[in-house]
């Protein structure tokens, strides 16, 4: 029986990956059509993607880490049918906390210091994500709306911190940014890629994605999250408090988002810069959707999206095709996914009716 369980899981995984690849291909084809119509060479997309996964792999790895983590952050509450659209805000809060702790630490900080920085970021992200959860439990506000609106709070709070509170007084530039972090607290780069943007963040993303899949499939909390998501009435009848599960799921999601903020600060920016986050949280929604909400699938779709993001930059650099093309691809992927979902739902409805 155990083997049949595994066979089913493997079959499911293969099917999911095939589905991902198909949808990406469809999206790329459509974008190629758009490019051809607008007078560009449609093969630029392939060129950009090709470079992103070969010569410019370092950039892809740099972007894959936040993409994967963002997908994971979306996955956790989504499994409980809760939509956390506030990952971007939680990333900002994580970044603020990471910077504050890093700047307060003695400059000869070692690994312990770095761990402290990440812990602070995770806590800040979690705390920020708890706000909409608590509001939902006690005031019955809609989580989608509150998480979404709190993104602005996160963004402008970061700007305020960077421009006023933590602003580097010695720098006279126009950029609103804090002092630079001591170099001992920079996240190490990947040695294999020399002096590039690829950093250890990808390992952190890998470990967290694996940890969350363990959480989903092997722990009691994962079971509770799944039950609350598939039938809250059933979970309640079994004595599971869905309010507790909601708080835990949102806190975990926020913590993962906070870690994204810490990675961005310690690995790439090395300081707190206003508006540093290019909507990573929203990309995470697509990443999670494409992976059918499976944290292992997120590893693949997140990596692909890292490549997409990177290839956009590459294309802009090499040709005159604007970066925005990557966003069109993402939008089309969302469309294909939702079309797929509705088709499946219709089919199921039809079957149910004819029964």
């Amino acid at each position, binding site marked *: 029986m155990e083997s049949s369980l595994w066979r089913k899981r493997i079959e499911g995984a293969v099917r999911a990956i095939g589905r991902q690849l198909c949808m990406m291909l469809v999206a790329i084809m459509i974008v190629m059509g758009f490019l051809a119509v607008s007078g560009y060479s449609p093969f630029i997309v392939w060129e950009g993607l090709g470079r992103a996964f070969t010569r410019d792999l370092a950039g892809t790895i740099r972007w894959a880490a936040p993409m994967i983590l963002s997908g994971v952050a979306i996955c956790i509450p989504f499994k409980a049918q809760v939509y956390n659209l506030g990952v971007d805000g939680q990333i900002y809060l994580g970044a603020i906390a990471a910077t504050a702790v890093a700047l307060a630490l003695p400059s000869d900080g070692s690994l312990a210091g770095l761990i402290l920085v990440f812990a602070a970021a995770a806590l800040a992200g979690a705390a920020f994500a708890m706000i909409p959860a608590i509001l939902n439990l006690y005031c019955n506000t809609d989580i989608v709306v509150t998480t979404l609106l709190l993104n602005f709070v996160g963004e402008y709070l970061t700007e305020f911190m960077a421009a006023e509170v933590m602003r580097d007084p010695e720098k006279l530039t126009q950029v609103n940014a804090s002092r630079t972090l001591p170099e001992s607290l920079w996240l190490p780069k990947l040695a294999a890629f020399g002096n590039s943007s690829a950093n250890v963040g990808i390992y952190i993303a890998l470990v967290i994605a694996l940890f969350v899949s363990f959480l989903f499939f092997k722990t*009691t909390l994962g079971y509770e999250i799944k039950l609350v998501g*598939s*039938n809250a*009435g059933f979970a309640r009848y079994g004595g599971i408090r869905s309010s507790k599960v909601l708080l835990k799921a949102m806190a975990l999601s926020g913590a993962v988002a906070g870690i994204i903020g810490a990675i961005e600060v310690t690995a790439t920016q090395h300081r707190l810069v206003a508006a540093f986050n290019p909507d990573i949280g929203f990309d995470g929604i697509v990443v999670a959707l494409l992976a059918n909400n499976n944290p292992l699938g997120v590893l693949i779709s997140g990596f692909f999206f890292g490549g997409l993001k990177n290839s956009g930059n590459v294309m802009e650099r090499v040709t005159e095709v604007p970066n925005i093309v990557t966003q069109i691809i993402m939008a089309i992927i969302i469309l294909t996914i939702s079309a797929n979902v509705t088709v499946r739902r219709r089919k199921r409805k039809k079957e149910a009716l004819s*029964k």
Partner: protein
Amino acid sequence: MAFAIELLNITKRFPGVIANNDVSVHVEECEIHGLLGENGAGKSTIMNILYGMSRPDEGIVRLYGKEVEFHSPMDAIQQGIGMVHQHFKLMPDETVLRNIILGWTPKKGLSIDEKKAMEEIGVIMEQYGLKVNLKAKIHQLSVGEKQRVEIIKALYRKVKILILDEPTAVLTPAETDALLETMQRLKKQGCTIIFITHKLREVLAVTDHVTVMRKGVVTGTGLTSEMNVGKLSKLIVGKEVSMEIPMKSYQPGKKVLEMKQVSTAMRPGRMPLKEISLEIHEGEIVGVAGVDGNGQSDLGEVIAGLIPAESGNILLDEEEITKSSIRERRQKGIAHVPEDRLKTGAAKDCTISENLILNCYDQAPFSRRMVMDHKKITRVSEELCEKYLVKTPDSTYTIGTLSGGNMQKVVVAREFSSSPRLLIAAQPTRGVDIGATQYIRTKIAELRDAGKGVLLISAELDEVMAMSDQIIVLYEGEIVARFKRGEADEYEIGEYMLGSKRQEVTYGE
């Protein structure tokens, strides 16, 4: 006599199953034709084909000797076929009149000609002896009256053939008798009726011919006068079933559950409890009779802790549990088969084993320090599936793929295997076929014989009467009568169910 309906060699396939395999049904003009079979036997499929809701893969449908092809229920209605579904399709906030004329509205210019409609419906009510107040709103009516509205609705559409899908499942005995009488009258007036039901007694009482289906094929058909209960149930189940449930003699032990003047809060669509006092002892089944919606739902849920008690006390083994959480009550030994399998009894996108471990997933040996042992869980689930006769290849299938009866067996397996002190069984056999019904009742009897207390809440009076050592009757959230086994017959209990009689019920003298 000519045939009104001939369904000839109908085959209908769904992915993975053949719902109807070479099914032929002949219904004579002006007769009541019984259609019997377990859930999933293919009755609904064949009726959906007749009513134009789905189309057969093979086979033909003849109406009064003429071949017809329906593309939608509208076609069927136009040809004179009407269906009264088990779940009524009425708008609760509209008047009876408007519900009847919906879609077939007589018009005077742009406005509805209500007067003409009233007259036409009046004629129908006169002719068939069906009385309903046309000005009343649907939500003010009883279940029996709503059903009458559905029948009038069909007749108003000039229907000559009526399909009644399990019409008696929701009725009291008196209402059932009234319906059977109405059916006879409709027949005399020239209607042809197809009567789908689980209840053999009603089939034998009212039908002329009967067709029995099992697993997508017709297993028997013939004159009702040549049938009896034994013969029919053998055709339905495929083997002899004993309708008797073996039980030890009644020897109640200690008090397991005590309720003292428990009331619940008013909530929309629900009847609250008013100062309910109740005792359940070891080795005793207390049956709750009552028309649906008289507080049964609140009674089960307030004991299980799903809804709070507004006042009063609930004691389990002399211990106060009025304020305990659902989880605490479960750990103290309350098991609960909820009335709504799909909404509360199961998570249909989760696997069978995930559904089975709900009560114990966070305890050894299923999990240690939050990490679950899937090997152990799978093994125990397989054992439970085998022990409780759940028909499935293995326990990793999602529970939504099971039939209603099998799903209920999973719920029963979960709740019964937790070795409870008290079992609350709310509608344990609702929508479950004969085989599974018999099985579930036997299991409930086993629990009683093992010295557990059982509260059996059921809309099926037969079930309550056959199983219970004590029967209480709920009417508008109050206990209006209490009987020992055999003290009252179904008609007497029926009077209490309808509120026309009441006793003073007290406990502990």
